[in-house]
Protein backbone atom coordinates (compact mmCIF):
# COMPACT_ATOMS: atom_id res chain seq x y z
CA UNK A 1 0.00 0.00 0.00
CA UNK A 2 1.33 3.44 -0.90
CA UNK A 3 2.10 5.75 1.95
CA UNK A 4 2.13 9.51 2.45
CA UNK A 5 2.31 11.78 5.48
CA UNK A 6 -0.72 14.04 5.90
CA UNK A 7 1.66 16.99 6.18
CA UNK A 8 3.11 16.16 2.75
CA UNK A 9 -0.37 15.94 1.25
CA UNK A 10 -1.17 19.29 2.91
CA UNK A 11 1.86 21.00 1.37
CA UNK A 12 1.00 19.76 -2.11
CA UNK A 13 -2.71 20.55 -1.82
CA UNK A 14 -1.91 24.09 -0.68
CA UNK A 15 0.01 24.68 -3.90
CA UNK A 16 -2.89 23.29 -5.92
CA UNK A 17 -5.32 25.58 -4.11
CA UNK A 18 -2.95 28.51 -4.50
CA UNK A 19 -2.98 28.02 -8.25
CA UNK A 20 -6.77 28.10 -8.27
CA UNK A 21 -7.36 30.99 -5.88
CA UNK A 22 -5.48 34.27 -5.65
CA UNK A 23 -6.94 35.17 -2.27
CA UNK A 24 -5.15 32.38 -0.39
CA UNK A 25 -2.38 33.48 1.96
CA UNK A 26 -0.20 31.06 3.92
CA UNK A 27 1.53 31.81 7.21
CA UNK A 28 4.12 29.84 9.10
CA UNK A 29 6.23 30.33 12.21
CA UNK A 30 9.72 29.27 11.11
CA UNK A 31 8.73 25.65 10.55
CA UNK A 32 7.81 25.74 6.88
CA UNK A 33 10.18 22.94 5.92
CA UNK A 34 8.60 20.66 8.51
CA UNK A 35 4.98 21.71 8.07
CA UNK A 36 5.48 21.61 4.27
CA UNK A 37 4.18 25.12 3.68
CA UNK A 38 7.60 25.66 2.11
CA UNK A 39 6.11 24.24 -1.12
CA UNK A 40 3.61 27.10 -1.19
CA UNK A 41 6.28 29.63 -0.20
CA UNK A 42 8.33 28.56 -3.19
CA UNK A 43 5.40 28.66 -5.61
CA UNK A 44 3.85 31.90 -4.33
CA UNK A 45 6.46 33.86 -2.36
CA UNK A 46 4.34 37.04 -2.48
CA UNK A 47 1.49 35.25 -0.68
CA UNK A 48 3.58 33.53 1.98
CA UNK A 49 4.33 35.27 5.26
CA UNK A 50 6.83 33.92 7.73
CA UNK A 51 5.93 35.13 11.21
CA UNK A 52 9.20 33.92 12.64
CA UNK A 53 9.15 32.14 15.99
CA UNK A 54 6.10 34.06 17.14
CA UNK A 55 2.96 31.94 16.98
CA UNK A 56 0.74 34.39 18.84
CA UNK A 57 1.46 37.13 16.34
CA UNK A 58 1.09 34.64 13.49
CA UNK A 59 -2.49 33.96 14.56
CA UNK A 60 -3.16 37.67 15.16
CA UNK A 61 -1.84 38.57 11.70
CA UNK A 62 -3.97 35.78 10.25
CA UNK A 63 -7.00 37.48 11.80
CA UNK A 64 -6.09 40.82 10.22
CA UNK A 65 -5.48 39.25 6.82
CA UNK A 66 -8.80 37.41 7.00
CA UNK A 67 -10.59 40.60 8.08
CA UNK A 68 -9.14 42.18 4.93
CA UNK A 69 -10.64 39.42 2.78
CA UNK A 70 -7.93 36.79 2.56
CA UNK A 71 -8.44 33.06 3.07
CA UNK A 72 -5.63 32.23 5.46
CA UNK A 73 -3.91 28.93 6.15
CA UNK A 74 -1.56 29.18 9.15
CA UNK A 75 0.76 26.39 10.19
CA UNK A 76 3.04 25.38 13.00
CA UNK A 77 3.42 22.28 15.14
CA UNK A 78 0.19 21.29 16.89
CA UNK A 79 1.61 21.98 20.34
CA UNK A 80 2.44 25.61 19.49
CA UNK A 81 -0.51 26.45 17.24
CA UNK A 82 -3.05 25.26 19.80
CA UNK A 83 -1.07 25.73 23.01
CA UNK A 84 1.15 28.77 22.71
CA UNK A 85 -1.45 30.63 20.67
CA UNK A 86 -4.56 29.20 22.33
CA UNK A 87 -6.04 32.50 23.38
CA UNK A 88 -5.31 34.10 20.02
CA UNK A 89 -7.12 31.24 18.30
CA UNK A 90 -9.96 31.67 20.77
CA UNK A 91 -10.32 35.45 20.76
CA UNK A 92 -8.90 36.62 17.44
CA UNK A 93 -10.10 33.78 15.20
CA UNK A 94 -13.02 31.90 16.70
CA UNK A 95 -14.74 34.72 18.60
CA UNK A 96 -14.52 36.91 15.49
CA UNK A 97 -15.54 33.89 13.35
CA UNK A 98 -12.84 34.57 10.75
CA UNK A 99 -11.90 32.55 7.71
CA UNK A 100 -8.62 31.16 9.01
CA UNK A 101 -7.57 27.53 8.85
CA UNK A 102 -5.07 26.53 11.52
CA UNK A 103 -3.31 23.58 9.90
CA UNK A 104 -1.00 22.09 12.48
CA UNK A 105 1.42 19.26 11.85
CA UNK A 106 3.44 17.06 14.22
CA UNK A 107 0.45 16.18 16.36
CA UNK A 108 0.53 13.33 18.86
CA UNK A 109 3.39 11.10 19.91
CA UNK A 110 4.51 10.18 16.39
CA UNK A 111 6.53 13.40 16.47
CA UNK A 112 9.05 10.90 17.85
CA UNK A 113 12.53 11.80 19.02
CA UNK A 114 11.81 15.45 19.91
CA UNK A 115 10.00 14.14 22.96
CA UNK A 116 7.13 15.09 25.24
CA UNK A 117 7.56 18.87 25.01
CA UNK A 118 6.74 18.66 21.31
CA UNK A 119 4.06 15.96 21.36
CA UNK A 120 0.58 17.42 21.64
CA UNK A 121 -1.83 15.03 23.33
CA UNK A 122 -4.46 17.60 24.27
CA UNK A 123 -4.95 19.73 21.14
CA UNK A 124 -8.21 18.13 20.00
CA UNK A 125 -9.70 18.62 23.46
CA UNK A 126 -8.84 22.29 23.74
CA UNK A 127 -9.76 23.17 20.16
CA UNK A 128 -13.02 21.22 20.33
CA UNK A 129 -14.24 23.29 23.27
CA UNK A 130 -13.97 26.61 21.40
CA UNK A 131 -17.27 27.82 19.88
CA UNK A 132 -17.36 28.42 16.08
CA UNK A 133 -14.25 26.30 15.52
CA UNK A 134 -14.39 23.08 13.46
CA UNK A 135 -11.90 20.30 14.17
CA UNK A 136 -10.73 17.95 11.43
CA UNK A 137 -8.30 15.02 11.71
CA UNK A 138 -7.71 13.33 8.34
CA UNK A 139 -6.65 9.69 8.18
CA UNK A 140 -4.52 9.76 5.05
CA UNK A 141 -3.02 11.96 2.35
CA UNK A 142 -5.94 11.71 -0.06
CA UNK A 143 -8.53 12.76 2.51
CA UNK A 144 -6.21 15.54 3.70
CA UNK A 145 -6.28 16.97 0.19
CA UNK A 146 -10.04 16.56 -0.08
CA UNK A 147 -10.50 18.16 3.34
CA UNK A 148 -8.43 21.15 2.28
CA UNK A 149 -10.54 21.72 -0.82
CA UNK A 150 -13.72 21.46 1.25
CA UNK A 151 -12.34 23.86 3.86
CA UNK A 152 -11.57 26.44 1.22
CA UNK A 153 -15.20 26.34 0.08
CA UNK A 154 -16.54 26.64 3.62
CA UNK A 155 -15.82 30.00 5.30
CA UNK A 156 -14.99 29.99 9.01
CA UNK A 157 -12.29 29.05 11.46
CA UNK A 158 -10.95 25.50 11.46
CA UNK A 159 -8.37 23.42 13.27
CA UNK A 160 -6.88 20.81 10.93
CA UNK A 161 -4.72 18.25 12.75
CA UNK A 162 -1.95 16.72 10.67
CA UNK A 163 0.88 14.33 11.39
CA UNK A 164 4.52 13.68 10.74
CA UNK A 165 4.74 9.98 9.76
CA UNK A 166 3.83 8.41 6.44
CA UNK A 167 0.43 6.72 6.59
CA UNK A 168 -1.14 4.16 4.22
CA UNK A 169 -3.37 5.74 1.56
CA UNK A 170 -6.92 4.61 2.26
CA UNK A 171 -8.97 6.66 -0.15
CA UNK A 172 -9.32 7.47 -3.83
CA UNK A 173 -9.45 10.99 -5.21
CA UNK A 174 -13.15 10.63 -6.02
CA UNK A 175 -14.11 9.69 -2.44
CA UNK A 176 -17.17 11.56 -1.21
CA UNK A 177 -15.52 13.49 1.62
CA UNK A 178 -17.86 15.84 3.51
CA UNK A 179 -16.95 17.92 6.54
CA UNK A 180 -19.05 16.64 9.45
CA UNK A 181 -19.83 13.25 7.89
CA UNK A 182 -17.97 10.21 9.16
CA UNK A 183 -16.96 7.59 6.60
CA UNK A 184 -17.96 3.95 7.13
CA UNK A 185 -14.98 1.93 5.99
CA UNK A 186 -16.32 -1.46 7.11
CA UNK A 187 -19.73 -2.80 8.00
CA UNK A 188 -20.22 -5.33 10.78
CA UNK A 189 -22.85 -6.05 13.44
CA UNK A 190 -20.70 -7.12 16.39
CA UNK A 191 -19.10 -3.81 17.39
CA UNK A 192 -18.02 -0.45 15.98
CA UNK A 193 -14.59 1.10 15.96
CA UNK A 194 -14.55 4.87 15.61
CA UNK A 195 -11.08 6.19 14.86
CA UNK A 196 -9.38 9.29 13.52
CA UNK A 197 -6.07 10.25 11.99
CA UNK A 198 -3.32 7.67 11.74
CA UNK A 199 -5.26 5.24 13.91
CA UNK A 200 -7.78 4.54 11.16
CA UNK A 201 -5.43 2.35 9.12
CA UNK A 202 -4.43 0.39 12.25
CA UNK A 203 -8.10 -0.10 13.11
CA UNK A 204 -8.76 -1.31 9.56
CA UNK A 205 -6.11 -3.98 9.99
CA UNK A 206 -7.58 -4.99 13.35
CA UNK A 207 -11.04 -5.35 11.81
CA UNK A 208 -9.62 -7.61 9.07
CA UNK A 209 -7.93 -9.87 11.63
CA UNK A 210 -11.17 -10.24 13.58
CA UNK A 211 -13.16 -10.86 10.41
CA UNK A 212 -11.03 -13.95 9.78
CA UNK A 213 -12.42 -15.33 13.05
CA UNK A 214 -15.94 -14.42 12.06
CA UNK A 215 -16.18 -11.30 14.24
CA UNK A 216 -17.68 -8.56 12.08
CA UNK A 217 -16.73 -5.06 13.21
CA UNK A 218 -17.86 -1.75 11.72
CA UNK A 219 -15.20 0.91 11.22
CA UNK A 220 -15.87 4.65 11.03
CA UNK A 221 -13.26 7.19 10.02
CA UNK A 222 -14.48 10.09 12.15
CA UNK A 223 -12.32 12.70 10.44
CA UNK A 224 -14.50 15.55 11.70
CA UNK A 225 -14.49 15.72 15.48
CA UNK A 226 -16.53 18.92 15.35
CA UNK A 227 -19.22 19.29 14.14
CA UNK A 228 -19.57 15.67 15.18
CA UNK A 229 -21.59 13.22 13.06
CA UNK A 230 -23.95 12.31 15.91
CA UNK A 231 -26.47 10.62 13.61
CA UNK A 232 -23.89 8.12 12.42
CA UNK A 233 -22.64 7.44 15.97
CA UNK A 234 -26.16 6.82 17.26
CA UNK A 235 -26.98 4.58 14.29
CA UNK A 236 -23.82 2.53 14.86
CA UNK A 237 -24.59 2.35 18.59
CA UNK A 238 -28.02 0.92 17.79
CA UNK A 239 -26.73 -1.47 15.13
CA UNK A 240 -23.74 -2.87 17.01
CA UNK A 241 -24.27 -2.17 20.73
CA UNK A 242 -20.62 -1.44 21.57
CA UNK A 243 -18.09 1.18 20.48
CA UNK A 244 -14.31 1.41 20.67
CA UNK A 245 -12.74 4.80 20.00
CA UNK A 246 -9.11 5.01 18.89
CA UNK A 247 -7.03 8.17 18.67
CA UNK A 248 -3.46 9.35 19.00
CA UNK A 249 -4.50 11.83 21.70
CA UNK A 250 -5.32 11.88 25.37
CA UNK A 251 -8.36 9.72 26.16
CA UNK A 252 -9.68 12.83 27.93
CA UNK A 253 -11.54 15.31 25.79
CA UNK A 254 -10.70 14.11 22.30
CA UNK A 255 -12.53 11.81 19.90
CA UNK A 256 -13.30 9.37 22.73
CA UNK A 257 -14.76 12.12 24.85
CA UNK A 258 -16.85 13.45 21.98
CA UNK A 259 -18.24 9.98 21.16
CA UNK A 260 -19.04 9.31 24.83
CA UNK A 261 -20.94 12.58 25.05
CA UNK A 262 -23.02 11.68 22.00
CA UNK A 263 -23.67 8.09 23.10
CA UNK A 264 -24.43 8.74 26.77
CA UNK A 265 -26.97 11.43 25.98
CA UNK A 266 -28.70 9.58 23.14
CA UNK A 267 -28.28 5.82 23.30
CA UNK A 268 -26.12 4.60 26.20
CA UNK A 269 -24.08 1.51 25.36
CA UNK A 270 -20.61 0.31 26.44
CA UNK A 271 -17.80 2.51 25.04
CA UNK A 272 -14.08 1.93 25.47
CA UNK A 273 -11.66 4.78 24.76
CA UNK A 274 -8.23 3.94 23.39
CA UNK A 275 -5.57 6.62 23.25
CA UNK A 276 -2.84 8.16 25.34
CA UNK A 277 -3.83 7.46 28.92
CA UNK A 278 -3.45 10.94 30.39
CA UNK A 279 0.34 10.99 30.35
CA UNK A 280 2.92 13.00 28.43
CA UNK A 281 5.00 11.44 25.69
CA UNK A 282 8.77 11.02 25.53
CA UNK A 283 11.61 10.59 23.07
CA UNK A 284 11.78 7.50 20.89
CA UNK A 285 11.14 6.31 17.39
CA UNK A 286 7.49 6.79 16.38
CA UNK A 287 6.93 3.02 16.11
CA UNK A 288 8.52 2.41 19.52
CA UNK A 289 6.32 5.08 21.06
CA UNK A 290 3.17 3.63 19.51
CA UNK A 291 4.13 0.25 21.02
CA UNK A 292 4.99 1.77 24.39
CA UNK A 293 1.72 3.69 24.67
CA UNK A 294 -0.32 0.77 23.39
CA UNK A 295 -1.51 2.20 20.10
CA UNK A 296 -1.16 -0.96 18.04
CA UNK A 297 -3.26 -3.30 15.91
CA UNK A 298 -2.93 -6.00 18.62
CA UNK A 299 -4.27 -3.69 21.30
CA UNK A 300 -7.21 -2.70 19.13
CA UNK A 301 -8.02 -6.39 18.57
CA UNK A 302 -7.67 -7.05 22.30
CA UNK A 303 -9.93 -4.16 23.24
CA UNK A 304 -12.62 -5.20 20.80
CA UNK A 305 -12.61 -8.70 22.32
CA UNK A 306 -12.96 -7.24 25.83
CA UNK A 307 -15.72 -4.94 24.65
CA UNK A 308 -17.69 -7.81 23.13
CA UNK A 309 -17.81 -9.45 26.57
CA UNK A 310 -19.47 -6.35 27.99
CA UNK A 311 -22.33 -6.37 25.51
Amino acid at each position, binding site marked *: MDKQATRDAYGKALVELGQLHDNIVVLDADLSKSTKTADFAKAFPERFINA*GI*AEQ*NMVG*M*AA*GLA*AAGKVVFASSFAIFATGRAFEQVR*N*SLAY*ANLNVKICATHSGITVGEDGGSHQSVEDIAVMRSIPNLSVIVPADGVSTRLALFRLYEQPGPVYLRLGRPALPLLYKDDTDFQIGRGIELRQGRDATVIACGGMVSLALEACRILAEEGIQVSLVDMHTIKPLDQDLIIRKAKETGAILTVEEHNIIGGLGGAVCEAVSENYPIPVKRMGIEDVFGQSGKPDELMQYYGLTVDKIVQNIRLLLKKK
Partner: protein
Amino acid sequence: MKEITEQSVTITTEKARQMRRNIISMLGQAGSGHTGGSLSASDIVACLYFWEMNIDPKNPGWEARDRFVLSKGHAAPVLYAALAEKGFFPQDYLNRLRKLGSPLQGHPDMRKLPGVEASTGSLGQGISWAVGMALAGKMDQKPYRVYALLGDGEIEEGMVWEASMAAAHYKLDNLTAFIDNNGLQIDGRVEEVMSPLPIPDKFRAFGWEVLEIDGHDHRQIMQALNTARTVQNRPTAVIAHTIKGKGCSFMENRAEWHGVAPKPDEVEKALAELS
Protein backbone atom coordinates in the same frame (compact mmCIF):
# COMPACT_ATOMS: atom_id res chain seq x y z
CA MET B 1 0.21 66.46 2.99
CA LYS B 2 -3.21 67.40 4.31
CA GLU B 3 -3.72 71.01 5.26
CA ILE B 4 -4.29 71.67 8.95
CA THR B 5 -6.67 74.58 9.16
CA GLU B 6 -8.24 76.53 12.00
CA GLN B 7 -11.55 75.11 10.83
CA SER B 8 -10.44 71.47 10.88
CA VAL B 9 -9.11 71.88 14.43
CA THR B 10 -12.37 73.52 15.49
CA ILE B 11 -14.33 70.61 14.01
CA THR B 12 -12.28 67.84 15.63
CA THR B 13 -12.18 69.70 18.95
CA GLU B 14 -15.95 69.97 18.96
CA LYS B 15 -16.29 66.30 17.96
CA ALA B 16 -13.95 65.27 20.77
CA ARG B 17 -16.02 67.27 23.26
CA GLN B 18 -19.24 65.63 22.01
CA MET B 19 -17.61 62.20 22.10
CA ARG B 20 -16.50 62.76 25.70
CA ARG B 21 -20.05 63.74 26.65
CA ASN B 22 -21.36 60.58 25.01
CA ILE B 23 -18.71 58.46 26.72
CA ILE B 24 -19.81 59.80 30.11
CA SER B 25 -23.51 59.34 29.34
CA MET B 26 -23.22 55.82 27.95
CA LEU B 27 -20.99 54.67 30.80
CA GLY B 28 -23.36 56.27 33.31
CA GLN B 29 -26.27 54.35 31.81
CA ALA B 30 -24.29 51.11 31.55
CA GLY B 31 -23.21 51.35 35.19
CA SER B 32 -19.85 49.76 34.39
CA GLY B 33 -17.02 50.14 31.91
CA HIS B 34 -13.73 51.89 31.29
CA THR B 35 -13.94 55.63 31.67
CA GLY B 36 -10.36 56.91 32.15
CA GLY B 37 -8.79 55.34 29.07
CA SER B 38 -11.74 56.27 26.85
CA LEU B 39 -11.35 59.94 27.80
CA SER B 40 -7.56 59.94 27.38
CA ALA B 41 -7.91 58.64 23.80
CA SER B 42 -10.80 60.89 22.70
CA ASP B 43 -8.72 63.53 20.92
CA ILE B 44 -6.69 60.98 18.95
CA VAL B 45 -9.80 59.06 17.90
CA ALA B 46 -11.65 62.28 16.99
CA CYS B 47 -8.78 63.38 14.73
CA LEU B 48 -8.72 59.96 13.06
CA TYR B 49 -12.46 59.77 12.39
CA PHE B 50 -13.13 63.42 11.61
CA TRP B 51 -9.97 64.53 9.86
CA GLU B 52 -7.73 61.67 8.79
CA MET B 53 -9.50 58.50 7.77
CA ASN B 54 -11.01 57.71 4.42
CA ILE B 55 -14.20 55.89 5.47
CA ASP B 56 -17.84 55.75 4.47
CA PRO B 57 -20.45 55.08 7.16
CA LYS B 58 -22.93 54.11 4.47
CA ASN B 59 -20.54 51.46 3.19
CA PRO B 60 -18.65 50.08 6.19
CA GLY B 61 -17.30 47.13 4.17
CA TRP B 62 -15.83 49.31 1.39
CA GLU B 63 -12.61 47.54 0.39
CA ALA B 64 -10.47 50.64 -0.06
CA ARG B 65 -11.35 52.15 3.33
CA ASP B 66 -8.79 53.07 5.94
CA ARG B 67 -8.96 50.85 8.98
CA PHE B 68 -8.82 51.63 12.68
CA VAL B 69 -8.10 48.88 15.21
CA LEU B 70 -8.78 49.67 18.85
CA SER B 71 -6.15 47.38 20.32
CA LYS B 72 -6.92 48.69 23.82
CA GLY B 73 -10.42 47.27 23.38
CA HIS B 74 -11.58 48.22 26.86
CA ALA B 75 -11.78 51.82 25.61
CA ALA B 76 -14.76 50.67 23.51
CA PRO B 77 -16.85 53.72 24.53
CA VAL B 78 -14.51 56.08 22.65
CA LEU B 79 -14.86 53.96 19.52
CA TYR B 80 -18.65 53.72 19.88
CA ALA B 81 -18.88 57.49 20.41
CA ALA B 82 -16.87 58.14 17.24
CA LEU B 83 -18.81 55.62 15.13
CA ALA B 84 -22.17 56.99 16.30
CA GLU B 85 -21.06 60.57 15.67
CA LYS B 86 -19.85 59.55 12.22
CA GLY B 87 -23.20 57.93 11.45
CA PHE B 88 -22.35 54.22 11.36
CA PHE B 89 -25.39 53.53 13.53
CA PRO B 90 -28.11 55.53 15.30
CA GLN B 91 -27.07 57.54 18.38
CA ASP B 92 -29.65 55.75 20.53
CA TYR B 93 -27.58 52.56 20.30
CA LEU B 94 -25.31 54.24 22.85
CA ASN B 95 -28.02 53.87 25.49
CA ARG B 96 -27.60 50.12 25.33
CA LEU B 97 -23.89 49.81 26.09
CA ARG B 98 -23.16 46.52 27.89
CA LYS B 99 -26.84 45.50 27.98
CA LEU B 100 -28.00 41.98 27.12
CA GLY B 101 -28.40 41.57 23.37
CA SER B 102 -26.79 44.94 22.59
CA PRO B 103 -24.47 45.39 19.60
CA LEU B 104 -22.36 47.55 21.93
CA GLN B 105 -20.53 44.84 23.79
CA GLY B 106 -18.25 45.56 26.75
CA HIS B 107 -15.38 45.14 24.31
CA PRO B 108 -15.76 45.74 20.55
CA ASP B 109 -17.35 42.91 18.54
CA MET B 110 -16.98 43.30 14.77
CA ARG B 111 -19.77 40.78 14.17
CA LYS B 112 -22.31 42.85 16.07
CA LEU B 113 -21.64 46.47 15.17
CA PRO B 114 -20.97 48.11 11.78
CA GLY B 115 -17.74 50.08 11.62
CA VAL B 116 -15.89 47.94 14.16
CA GLU B 117 -12.90 46.56 12.26
CA ALA B 118 -11.64 44.06 14.83
CA SER B 119 -12.96 42.14 17.80
CA THR B 120 -10.52 43.22 20.46
CA GLY B 121 -10.34 43.33 24.23
CA SER B 122 -7.72 40.74 24.98
CA LEU B 123 -4.75 43.09 25.10
CA GLY B 124 -1.94 42.82 22.59
CA GLN B 125 -3.97 41.11 19.89
CA GLY B 126 -5.32 44.15 18.03
CA ILE B 127 -1.90 45.34 16.92
CA SER B 128 -1.36 41.93 15.28
CA TRP B 129 -4.66 42.32 13.43
CA ALA B 130 -3.51 45.75 12.26
CA VAL B 131 -0.25 44.24 11.00
CA GLY B 132 -2.25 41.59 9.10
CA MET B 133 -4.50 44.24 7.54
CA ALA B 134 -1.48 46.33 6.54
CA LEU B 135 0.15 43.22 5.02
CA ALA B 136 -3.00 42.55 3.00
CA GLY B 137 -2.96 46.15 1.75
CA LYS B 138 0.65 45.81 0.62
CA MET B 139 -0.03 42.44 -0.99
CA ASP B 140 -2.92 43.83 -3.01
CA GLN B 141 -1.20 47.15 -3.63
CA LYS B 142 -4.17 48.98 -2.17
CA PRO B 143 -3.56 52.50 -0.91
CA TYR B 144 -5.53 52.21 2.33
CA ARG B 145 -3.86 52.97 5.65
CA VAL B 146 -4.19 51.11 8.93
CA TYR B 147 -4.27 52.76 12.37
CA ALA B 148 -4.02 51.09 15.74
CA LEU B 149 -4.46 52.50 19.21
CA LEU B 150 -2.66 50.80 22.08
CA GLY B 151 -2.51 51.52 25.78
CA ASP B 152 0.82 52.10 27.50
CA GLY B 153 -0.07 49.32 29.92
CA GLU B 154 -1.04 47.11 26.99
CA ILE B 155 2.49 47.17 25.61
CA GLU B 156 3.54 45.04 28.59
CA GLU B 157 2.05 42.15 26.58
CA GLY B 158 4.80 40.22 24.80
CA MET B 159 2.68 39.80 21.70
CA VAL B 160 2.86 43.55 21.05
CA TRP B 161 6.58 43.18 20.44
CA GLU B 162 6.13 40.16 18.19
CA ALA B 163 3.77 42.30 16.13
CA SER B 164 6.11 45.29 16.24
CA MET B 165 8.97 43.16 14.97
CA ALA B 166 6.82 41.87 12.11
CA ALA B 167 5.57 45.36 11.18
CA ALA B 168 9.13 46.63 10.79
CA HIS B 169 10.34 43.43 9.13
CA TYR B 170 7.65 43.72 6.46
CA LYS B 171 8.28 47.48 6.09
CA LEU B 172 4.67 48.39 6.77
CA ASP B 173 4.73 52.13 6.14
CA ASN B 174 0.95 51.95 5.74
CA LEU B 175 0.63 51.27 9.48
CA THR B 176 0.51 53.90 12.23
CA ALA B 177 0.21 52.91 15.89
CA PHE B 178 -0.77 55.41 18.57
CA ILE B 179 0.33 54.69 22.13
CA ASP B 180 -2.11 56.31 24.52
CA ASN B 181 0.57 57.13 27.07
CA ASN B 182 -1.58 58.16 30.03
CA GLY B 183 0.86 56.58 32.45
CA LEU B 184 -1.69 54.57 34.42
CA GLN B 185 -2.94 51.01 34.44
CA ILE B 186 -5.37 49.21 36.75
CA ASP B 187 -2.94 48.63 39.58
CA GLY B 188 -1.26 52.05 39.41
CA ARG B 189 1.46 53.92 37.55
CA VAL B 190 2.86 51.92 34.63
CA GLU B 191 6.45 52.42 35.74
CA GLU B 192 5.58 51.00 39.15
CA VAL B 193 3.46 48.05 38.00
CA MET B 194 5.74 46.87 35.16
CA SER B 195 7.68 49.60 33.49
CA PRO B 196 7.46 49.69 29.70
CA LEU B 197 9.67 52.82 29.73
CA PRO B 198 11.34 54.24 27.77
CA ILE B 199 8.62 53.67 25.18
CA PRO B 200 10.07 55.69 22.28
CA ASP B 201 13.45 53.93 22.51
CA LYS B 202 11.77 50.53 22.43
CA PHE B 203 9.82 51.22 19.24
CA ARG B 204 12.88 52.85 17.69
CA ALA B 205 14.94 49.77 18.52
CA PHE B 206 12.26 47.64 16.85
CA GLY B 207 12.71 49.60 13.63
CA TRP B 208 9.79 52.03 13.81
CA GLU B 209 9.68 55.73 13.04
CA VAL B 210 8.82 57.31 16.38
CA LEU B 211 7.01 60.59 17.02
CA GLU B 212 6.19 62.06 20.41
CA ILE B 213 3.28 64.42 20.82
CA ASP B 214 0.81 65.91 23.26
CA GLY B 215 -2.11 63.55 22.66
CA HIS B 216 -4.66 66.26 23.48
CA ASP B 217 -3.29 68.84 21.03
CA HIS B 218 -5.21 68.36 17.80
CA ARG B 219 -2.66 70.21 15.68
CA GLN B 220 0.09 67.93 16.95
CA ILE B 221 -2.03 64.83 16.31
CA MET B 222 -2.73 65.99 12.75
CA GLN B 223 0.92 66.87 12.17
CA ALA B 224 1.93 63.39 13.34
CA LEU B 225 -0.57 61.84 10.92
CA ASN B 226 0.83 63.98 8.12
CA THR B 227 4.37 62.93 8.98
CA ALA B 228 3.41 59.25 9.20
CA ARG B 229 2.02 59.42 5.67
CA THR B 230 5.43 60.52 4.36
CA VAL B 231 7.48 57.86 6.17
CA GLN B 232 8.66 55.12 3.85
CA ASN B 233 9.60 51.50 4.47
CA ARG B 234 8.80 51.44 8.15
CA PRO B 235 5.77 51.79 10.41
CA THR B 236 5.22 54.85 12.60
CA ALA B 237 4.61 54.83 16.34
CA VAL B 238 3.08 57.98 17.77
CA ILE B 239 3.72 58.15 21.49
CA ALA B 240 0.90 60.39 22.62
CA HIS B 241 1.29 61.87 26.07
CA THR B 242 -2.19 61.95 27.51
CA ILE B 243 -4.06 62.34 30.76
CA LYS B 244 -6.24 59.51 31.96
CA GLY B 245 -9.77 60.82 32.48
CA LYS B 246 -9.02 63.97 30.43
CA GLY B 247 -11.84 66.47 30.44
CA CYS B 248 -13.33 65.62 33.85
CA SER B 249 -11.27 67.29 36.57
CA PHE B 250 -12.17 64.78 39.28
CA MET B 251 -11.13 61.83 37.09
CA GLU B 252 -7.88 63.20 35.67
CA ASN B 253 -4.72 61.24 36.45
CA ARG B 254 -6.49 58.84 38.77
CA ALA B 255 -5.91 55.12 38.20
CA GLU B 256 -9.11 54.26 40.06
CA TRP B 257 -11.08 55.65 37.10
CA HIS B 258 -9.65 52.91 34.84
CA GLY B 259 -12.53 50.48 35.03
CA VAL B 260 -15.25 52.41 36.85
CA ALA B 261 -18.33 54.12 35.42
CA PRO B 262 -19.56 57.46 36.80
CA LYS B 263 -22.56 57.45 39.14
CA PRO B 264 -25.53 59.74 38.32
CA ASP B 265 -24.20 62.72 40.29
CA GLU B 266 -20.76 62.24 38.76
CA VAL B 267 -22.31 62.08 35.29
CA GLU B 268 -23.96 65.41 35.93
CA LYS B 269 -20.75 66.97 37.21
CA ALA B 270 -18.72 65.61 34.28
CA LEU B 271 -21.25 66.77 31.67
CA ALA B 272 -21.23 70.24 33.22
CA GLU B 273 -17.46 70.37 32.76
CA LEU B 274 -17.79 69.16 29.17
CA SER B 275 -20.54 71.57 28.15
